[in-house]
Each structure stands twice: as structure tokens, then as C-alpha cells.
């Protein structure tokens, strides 16, 4: 593992009296594609929201790019927010703006680059995520599910972030589209040296793109490491996950990347 980019230490999260995380810890290394796995309601999306300061844990500490999130100042937080991009599960594109305007919005707001340079950057990002050029002038309501994901990824990449958070990037995509999206993320990581944190329960993604991952269950991290390391873990949840019908079929095919 490379130098740590994100460390989560003894985080405890409660919603009211409902305990979500019970002292969980994990580490994400530089230029890694790190998966957060777990069944529905295991708190993986919550953990990701805590990493991007949408939620704050009751106890414990999360350090992102050297900033401790519990004691971060307003200016530091603003600086940090420019260094990550987030792909939300449903895209969360602004519905009143076109795709091009959605991608340009942070560039317009945070930089004083000239208009036509911003347009060039936007078109480049659109090409990069594999959207057709005419998609730039469409509104989010006119896009298909896969295009929404790609447009949203282009927006997340607009400011050249070091960190990319993906919340179930392949959910709702057909197998071909999901495969293409996985390959895209791999390519972007290699090209841009991104560190990617993805919440997923797509077995194919885990086999093909994820370098290391953590399995959340029973309010704790029950396994962390590479695929071979995690599969060696005897915990029943891990066994259920990879030993189920779908997991078994996938395992027979082996790692293809």
C-alpha cells in the first residue's frame, strides 16, 4: 500500500439511538481504487458521506489529505473541497443546467479562466468520459442512465481532483455499460493518478477494478485488504458474499484484468 490519503480511526456513528458504525478504522493509500462493500444498510454510504464532510461522526477521527476533519477550519475545508470530486448515486446533476453548464459550474465559480478556455476544458472532459459531443447541450432529464453517470463523472473531474468518490457507480447500468464504466475508472486512475474510493456491491467491479477494499458488516469493518486477503477471511458475512451463487460463478472465471 502506498502512502495513506485517507485514514479512518475508531469512528462511531449513531442516528438517534441507532448505532451505524462501532469504532471502525480503515486506510486508503495513494492512487488506489478502494472499495467499500457491505449489504444494504451496513453504513457504507454513510461512511463515504463522513469522508466528504456531509456528515460528521460522533466519535473518532477521519483524516483526508492530511486534514483532520473534526477540527478543520472553514478556509481549510473550502480548500479541501476543491481537491475531491463526488459522483452521487443518482448523478445529482443540476436539472436546470445543461450537461456542459453542469461541468463548468465549479470552474466558473472558483477560477477566473476565460470563457472559451472553460468551454474547451468542458469539451475535453466530455470526450474523456466517453460522452458524445452533442450531449453537451442536453439537459439532465434528456439523458439515459449511463449518460447521467458519465456526465456526473465529468463534473466530478472538472477541477482535476486528487480524490474521486463514487457512490455505486455501476448501479443501474447494463453489464456492458458497467464494464465500460469500470474500465473508464481504471484508465482515469492510471492517467491522472487519482485516488478512487467507491461504494459498491457489484461483484464484477470488485474483481476487475478494485485494488483493496473493506467489507462493512455488524457495524464494523470485518475484513480489509486485497481480494485474495479478504477471501481468506473466515467471517460468515464474507463467506456469504463470495460463496453465494453469483459470487461462486464469478470466482470460477477468475480475475480477468
Amino acid at each position: 500500500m502506498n502512502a495513506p490519503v485517507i485514514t479512518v480511526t475508531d469512528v462511531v456513528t449513531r442516528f438517534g439511538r441507532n448505532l451505524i458504525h462501532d469504532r471502525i478504522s480503515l486506510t486508503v493509500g495513494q492512487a488506489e481504487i478502494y472499495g467499500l462493500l457491505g449489504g444494504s444498510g451496513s453504513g457504507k454510504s454513510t461512511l463515504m458521506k463522513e469522508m466528504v464532510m456531509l456528515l460528521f461522526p460522533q466519535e473518532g477521527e477521519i483524516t483526508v489529505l492530511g486534514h483532520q476533519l473534526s477540527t478543520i477550519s472553514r478556509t481549510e475545508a473550502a480548500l479541501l473541497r476543491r481537491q475531491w470530486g463526488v459522483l452521487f448515486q443518482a448523478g445529482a446533476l443540476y436539472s436546470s443546467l445543461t450537461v456542459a453548464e453542469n461541468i463548468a459550474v465549479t470552474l466558473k465559480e472558483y477560477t477566473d479562466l476565460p470563457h472559451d478556455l472553460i468551454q474547451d476544458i468542458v469539451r475535453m472532459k466530455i470526450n474523456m468520459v466517453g460522452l458524445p459531443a452533442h450531449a453537451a447541450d442536453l439537459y439532465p432529464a434528456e439523458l439515459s442512465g449511463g449518460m447521467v453517470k458519465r456526465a456526473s463523472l465529468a463534473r466530478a473531474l472538472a477541477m482535476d481532483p486528487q480524490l474521486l468518490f463514487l457512490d455505486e457507480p455501476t448501479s443501474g447500468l447494463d453489464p456492458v455499460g458497467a464494464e465500460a464504466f469500470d474500465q473508464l475508472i481504471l484508465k482515469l486512475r492510471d492517467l491522472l493518478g487519482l485516488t478512487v474510493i467507491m461504494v459498491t456491491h457489484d461483484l464484477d467491479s470488485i474483481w476487475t477494478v478494485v485494488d483493496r477494499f473493506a467489507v462493512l458488516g455488524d457495524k464494523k469493518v470485518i475484513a480489509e485488504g486485497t481480494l485474495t486477503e479478504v477471501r481468506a477471511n473466515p467471517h460468515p458475512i464474507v463467506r456469504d458474499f463470495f460463496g453465494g451463487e453469483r459470487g461462486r460463478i464469478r470466482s470460477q472465471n477468475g480475475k480477468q484484468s
Partner: protein
Amino acid sequence: MDASFPHKSQITFIDINPAQGANGPAEEQARLQTQGAPKIDERRRVLITSSGDWILESLSDMDRKLDEFVRHIRKAVIQWDVSALGRIDSAGMMLFIRYYDRLQRQGCLLDIVGASPSHERMYQLLRQYMPEFVAARPALSSRLLRFFQRLGKMTASSLADFTAFLSFLGENFIIFLLALRHPLSIRYSAIVKNIEEAGVRAMPIIALTSFLIGVVIAYQGAVQLQKFGAHIFIVDMISISVTRELAPLITAIVVAGRTGSSYTAQIGVMKITEEIDAMRIMGFDPLHFLVQPRILALMIVMPLLIFFADMIGIMAGMFISNIHLNLSYGEFLRRLQVALEVKHVWIGLFKGPFFAWLIAVVACFRGFQVSKSTESIGRYTTISVVNAIFLVIACDALFSVLFTELGI
């Protein structure tokens, strides 16, 4: 890795042989035109040195500096030294590529010196995804033409809107006929729920507005009537104007703003979350399950609300007359029995179902027009309320003319 503060991006331009470069740009141009392209060694030579970090945060006026310089350079030999360059991101590289290409288009010979492997990688990456040069779309030539284009589009879309509305009315009428044939299929529980929501819950705001209307009429009337010493006619004035015109109109406007908008928003949200489609799949006709109960509920509840508004409005008038004109309550009520023919009340109540039908039909129609985006809910809710209020006032004007002509 650490978020160290970016070094300011910098660039310097040095003319290597100022003897020729000293000529002003205009002279230079002229010289080039008269002599044709000069031989390589006669050309102007420039050394560009860039340093610092070329990233989003530090690029600010780089574009302006480059533009100022590049504008006057034609057919020069340029050495661009990038060895002092720190970090570069895609915005910085994009800027570099833009000016690199522009200089080449202007006939310059370019030599890039000192690029690091990471710069090379970024360059390759961006070259790969560089947008092709897109020709601008032909713009419409004149403002006048654009005006007519917009006018045409608006006309076409409002015609389409109108036909869609008519077909919506037709479908609803068929549903209504079906309901008459099978009265048991009508969703009575939904009607009762809507009556509570649109009627009972609206009573406080209706009471407040009609009370204020009564106060306003009484005050304004009292001032005028006092001049003639015709105090007692305040009763005629308040009772007839409130029951016949004001109570129905004010009630309809409040209901359009309160219930009409909520109908549009409710149906619009159901449309976005695909609940409407789910209902259709299961064989529940949304017109039967959503629209009809709302229309019927509003048509039942509107006359009741108007009657309630009548009472409150007249009561407010009585109250103000007592304070302002010293007209006792007994006297007011005795005069009311003489002055207020019951037909005025009936006419006011009669308008209720018509207003209600207009409001409910327009609100539901606009709700179904909501498309996939959340923004359209807001837009159609606004349109629905504006349409409903306009239609109510137009309908009221029609009734006014009609009843006057009929001598009622």
C-alpha cells in the same frame, strides 16, 4: 500530496534578436507581406520561459498575458522552455495546447524544451481527448427574425397545449360518464379526504381574507355614504357585493393558490417518481383514482366555503358599521332581511362548482405535464395557479354579463 500553497504561474518573453523584433507589429506585418516569408535565420526569434505551477488556482491572468504576446507574433521561431514548470493540471495544459496550436497556425516554428515525463503524459492524455474544432452553429441573422421564430414557437406550443387540454377534458368526461354508470366505483374515501384537505383546512385562511374584505368594503362604503347621510344603505352595499361577487371570487383565488398548487405538485411528484406509471401498469386509471376525486371534492366543497365566506364577510361589515356608523346589530340584521334578496346568495353559491371545476381540472392537467426534472414541478405549479386564477376571473366576468342580461 500535501495541499501546499501553489506557486504563482509565471511566464517571460525574451526577444533573442531584438534588432528585427524591435519593429512594431504593424511594420512587421507590412514587411512580411512585401517580402513573402523570410528565410529561417531572418525570422524573429523568441524565448518563452514558463515557471511556477500551471494549475487552476494559479492561472488567473496567464491567458491575458499569452494573448497579448501571441497576438502580434507571425512566422517567428520560438523556443518554449518549460523546465522550470512545476505541477500542471488539465486546465494549465489546455491553455498551453491552445497557444501552442495558435502559434503554429500563425506560422511559427515551435521548440519545446525541458518537458518532464509527467508533463509529457498529461500532454498525450489531453491531445487524445482534445475537442475537435467545432464550427459555430449558424446564428439567426437579425433580431427581427429571432422575434418571429420565438413567436412561432410559442404559438405552436400553446396550440399543442390547448389540444392536449381538450383531450384531457374529454378523457375526464368519459371517466365521469363511466362513474355515473357504476356509481359504486367512485372513490368516496378519497373524496372525503380531499374535502377535509381542501375545505376544512382552508377555513381559517378563508375566514381571515373574507373578514378583511368585509372590513374594507364597510370602511370605504361608510365614508361615501356618510356624505349623503344614507348610513343604512351600507347594509345593501355589503350584503349584495359580498354574497354575489366578492366571496366567490376571493374564495376561488385562495383555493386556486392553496389547493390548485398542491394538486399540481402532488401529481407532478407522482409523475417524477413513476408512481403514475406504476398505477397504469396495475390497471388503476390515474384519472379515475387521482383526478376525479379531486375534482368532485373541490366542486362539493367550494359552495360551502363560499357560504362560509359570505357569513364572515357580512359579519365583518356589521362589526365595522357598528363601530364606524353607530348602526346597531339589530338594525343591521333587520335591514339585511329587506335588502338582501336570496337570489344574490344563490348566484354566488352557483358559481362555486364552476370555479372549483376550472381550478381542479387545470391543476391536474398541469400536474400531468410535469416531465422528468424536478425543476418542472415548480414551473408547472406556477403556471397552474396563474391559469386557474385567470380562468376563474374570466368565468366570473362571463357570469356577470350573463346574469345581468338575463335580468337576474
